[in-house]
């Protein structure tokens, strides 16, 4: 088909991708769907035998009884693993994949059972006998492994007024626990994973080392849907699948119920004190001790504790800081730096102390904060503070009307503030980020990245960045991780530290492609004839310029693919945030309600505004989960944003994003946004509760007595009742 150069070439695209259409109709498949109905029949089932004791030795794993069970295939113990070492830093601490002769925590994996059917697997798991010697001493273990000291400035000789607060912040659990499942295909000594998310390069290398095989024998099939509930990467899940498949030479599947998983953050406790000069109204000293409960293995607890101590002073200019920190090992499940890397655990303490000092000095908490702002390392914090002040001015809390009866009176109300700044202090080691963009014949742009662990939010954000540069809709893009056959660096990092660099690389690649497409378009428009690809719709009635996507339907003899490798990066933008929350308590029932949360955020130039809004919602629900029910065994329902206030408002500081469209931007948004948001929302809620109740909150989750104050003992006499 040939038309003249003035023709308008276009194709009607459906705005929605097939993936979205499937999801909304319930036709999309997830890993659990495979386990329910879609698995090939020859797949075997793996189960995990876990320790029932926290701290115990065992002498023997007796699998003699299970040999008689029909359809039983194999029992795998530590002796069968070529290199029995856990992932990442925990391997250096001695954590094993399967315990060898002792366990440190309840639920530690000891053996794997592989069977041909789920029924046989259940019988097999019950039939494995282990000779346990429980150790009563290690059950209540509390061992100090590392100590740190964070000091700056000099202590004054004079004595000033001071306020101190003991605090306790328990391990914050992943509240959205869902079953996790996946399967591995074994074919020709190669393993292909079908799990909720992609394997990262580092995980692939680790699995290859564990099995003592080449990296190239491990593949991952990208799940187009993420996982179930967003998808998480379960290290236990992938290594157990790999071991069972490799040792039995069969395709295997594994299902973890929520009770088998324990993903919690480090727990914190200690005491902080703040001293201030009542005359000059200046903050002077921050002192205290923080200890971090790492569980059975320290992991990166030391690094997280250092970060916690560095951020304990928040955005305030203390003349003297003296903090001591210790990492403590206990007999609980190994912990992680989940949600907040210590910022959440410490911000509410400092902010409560600062608010108390302002109250003691009888000045406005915002005014007191403004007067004590740090000048360096907290760029734009003053702007955040000013914005919060602006937000607050039109509102005043109405005093209780004493003339009304109390049951007509609405509630006791309180408001509180919370602030924090997160500045990555040092630039971490950076190898490179590679992004390529291709315009396919279907009219879709395909973005391939060197990072394999991109989640849905990260993918959406990259689409948004490229769509901004190419002036088209984000739905025109598909993002996929590119599997590298050879991996140069073993220590390839996970998604989040690298994500902002990928955004930069995407921006650059999109700009390169834009130039290429402009040249190709110009060539096509100046040509005497244009050859259309099959499927193109021609509308000669409209005189419209050819868009980038329409180029895909012309006879493209030109190359419409570009690749950009980012090798050099600058210091990422710091993130400052402030929040003001309102809570109310019913005077009779004591019921607490979060009325509103308003957040001001300075996150640098962020393309993906929707992502930020989701992060604020998430931050509010996480803060509420921390406040009311952080323990996984709790019977409390899981708080979601729907349990939060009706009004959650996000204000972002404006950045002239257009300025960045012509030259390479040095950053795209700051790092650790959710952590900072969560920490300020939690601090503001705590301060609002404190304002309403007039009590200091020392413990999270908030004790019930705090919500429902003890009343006078009352005896109720019931009248005899006869029907």
């Amino acid at each position, binding site marked *: 088909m040939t038309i003249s150069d003035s023709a308008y070439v276009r194709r009607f695209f459906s705005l929605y991708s097939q993936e979205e259409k499937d999801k909304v109709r319930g036709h999309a498949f*997830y890993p659990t769907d495979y386990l329910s109905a879609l698995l090939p029949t020859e797949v075997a089932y793996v189960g995990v035998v876990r320790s029932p004791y926290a701290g115990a030795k065992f002498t023997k794993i007796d699998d003699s009884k299970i040999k008689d069970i029909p359809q039983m295939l194999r029992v795998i113990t530590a002796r069968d693993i070529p290199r029995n070492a856990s992932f990442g830093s925990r391997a250096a601490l001695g954590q094993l994949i399967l315990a060898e002769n002792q366990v440190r925590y309840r639920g530690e994996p000891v053996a794997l059972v592989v069977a041909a059917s789920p029924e046989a697997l259940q019988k097999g798991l019950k039939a494995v006998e282990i000779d346990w010697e429980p150790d009563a001493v290690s059950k209540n273990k509390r061992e100090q492994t590392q100590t740190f000291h964070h000091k700056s400035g000099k202590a004054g000789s004079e004595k000033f007024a001071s306020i101190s607060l003991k605090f306790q912040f328990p391990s914050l659990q992943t509240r959205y626990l869902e079953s996790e499942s996946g399967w591995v295909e074994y074919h020709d000594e190669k393993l292909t994973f079908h799990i909720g998310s992609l394997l990262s390069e580092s995980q692939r290398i680790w699995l290859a080392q564990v099995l003592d095989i080449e990296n190239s024998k491990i593949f991952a099939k990208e799940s187009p849907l993420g996982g179930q509930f967003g998808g998480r990467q379960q290290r236990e899940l992938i290594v157990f699948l790999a071991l069972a498949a490799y040792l039995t030479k069969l395709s295997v599947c594994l299902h973890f119920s929520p009770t088998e998983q324990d993903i919690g953050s480090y727990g914190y406790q200690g005491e902080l004190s703040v001293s201030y000069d009542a005359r000059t109204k200046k903050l002077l000293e921050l002192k205290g001790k923080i200890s971090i409960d790492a569980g059975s293995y320290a992991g990166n607890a030391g690094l997280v504790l250092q970060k916690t101590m560095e951020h304990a002073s928040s955005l305030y200019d203390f003349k003297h800081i003296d903090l001591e920190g210790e990492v403590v090992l206990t007999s609980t499940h190994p912990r992680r730096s989940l949600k907040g890397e210590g910022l959440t655990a410490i911000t509410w303490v400092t902010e409560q102390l600062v608010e108390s000092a302002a109250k003691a000095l009888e000045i406005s908490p915002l005014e007191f904060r403004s007067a004590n702002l740090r000048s360096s390392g907290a760029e734009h914090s003053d702007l955040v503070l000013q914005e919060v002040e602006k937000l607050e001015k039109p509102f005043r809390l109405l005093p209780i009307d004493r003339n009304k009866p109390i049951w007509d009176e609405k509630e006791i109300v309180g408001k509180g503030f919370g602030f924090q700044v997160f500045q990555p202090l040092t630039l971490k080691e950076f190898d490179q980020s590679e992004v390529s963009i291709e315009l396919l014949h279907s009219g879709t742009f395909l973005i391939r990245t060197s990072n394999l662990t991109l989640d849905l939010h990260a993918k959406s954000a990259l689409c948004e960045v490229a769509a901004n540069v190419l002036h088209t809709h984000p739905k025109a893009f598909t993002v996929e991780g590119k599997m590298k056959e050879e991996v140069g660096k073993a220590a390839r990092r996970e998604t989040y530290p690298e994500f902002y660099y990928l955004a930069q690389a995407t921006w650059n690649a999109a700009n390169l492609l834009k130039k290429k497409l402009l040249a190709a378009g110009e060539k096509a428009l100046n040509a005497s004839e244009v050859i259309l690809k099959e499927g193109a719709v021609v509308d000669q009635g409209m005189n419209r310029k050819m868009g980038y996507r329409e180029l895909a339907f012309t006879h493209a003899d030109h190359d419409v693919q570009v690749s950009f490798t980012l090798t050099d990066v600058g210091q990422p933008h710091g993130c400052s945030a402030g929040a003001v929350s309102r809570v109310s308590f019913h005077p009779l029932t004591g019921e607490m309600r979060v009325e509103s949360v308003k957040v001001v955020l300075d996150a640098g130039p962020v393309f993906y505004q929707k992502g930020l809004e989701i992060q604020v919602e998430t931050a509010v629900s996480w803060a509420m989960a921390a406040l009311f029910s952080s323990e996984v065994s709790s019977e409390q329902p899981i708080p979601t944003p729907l349990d939060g206030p009706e009004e959650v408002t996000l204000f972002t500081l404006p950045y002239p994003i257009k300025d960045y469209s012509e030259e390479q931007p040095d950053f795209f948004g700051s790092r650790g946004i959710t952590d900072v948001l969560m920490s300020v929302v939690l601090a503001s809620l705590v301060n609002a509760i404190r304002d309403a109740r007039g009590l200091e909150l020392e413990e999270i989750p908030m004790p019930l007595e705090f919500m429902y104050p003890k009343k006078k003992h009352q005896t109720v006499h019931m009248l005899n009742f006869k029907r």
Partner: protein
Amino acid sequence: MIIEWSLNGRPLRSEVSPFRRLLDYLRSDLKLLGAKEGCREGKCGACTVWIDGQVANACLKLMGQIDGKEVTTIEGLNEKERFTPLQEAFLTCSAIECGFCIPGMIMTGTALLHQDPNPGRLEIREALKGHLCACTGYQKMLDAIEGVALPPASEGQARMRIRR
């Protein structure tokens, strides 16, 4: 035990243990995978179905309990060549990320709109409270359901929903 019930408008006679969970029967035996298996304890709402027009968690219902009942899953809600108004609203509001919670939300949202064609935002929030979404956030879902809801009587001249 033989259970006589109806699934997505079709009468069925199933020989099944009365203690088998409805969710397992739907997913493993009938291969209807629209109701998702999240928490298995009624916390996440991913397995929501209708039983006699009322929303219910399929993971908490046993087959014995649905004898003589009418069950509808997301597959029964789907129309052949078009989306339902709420499905379309979810698409236009970009209320989908990983999509695992979406079938449940669509079931609850549609049931709510059948019950009350113009629910307020608060009612929509209350209705969605039994559903967990870990990646999208809830605002866009609320927007989607609100978008399908009829305007209150005082706002429009006539309360009429245009169906294609």
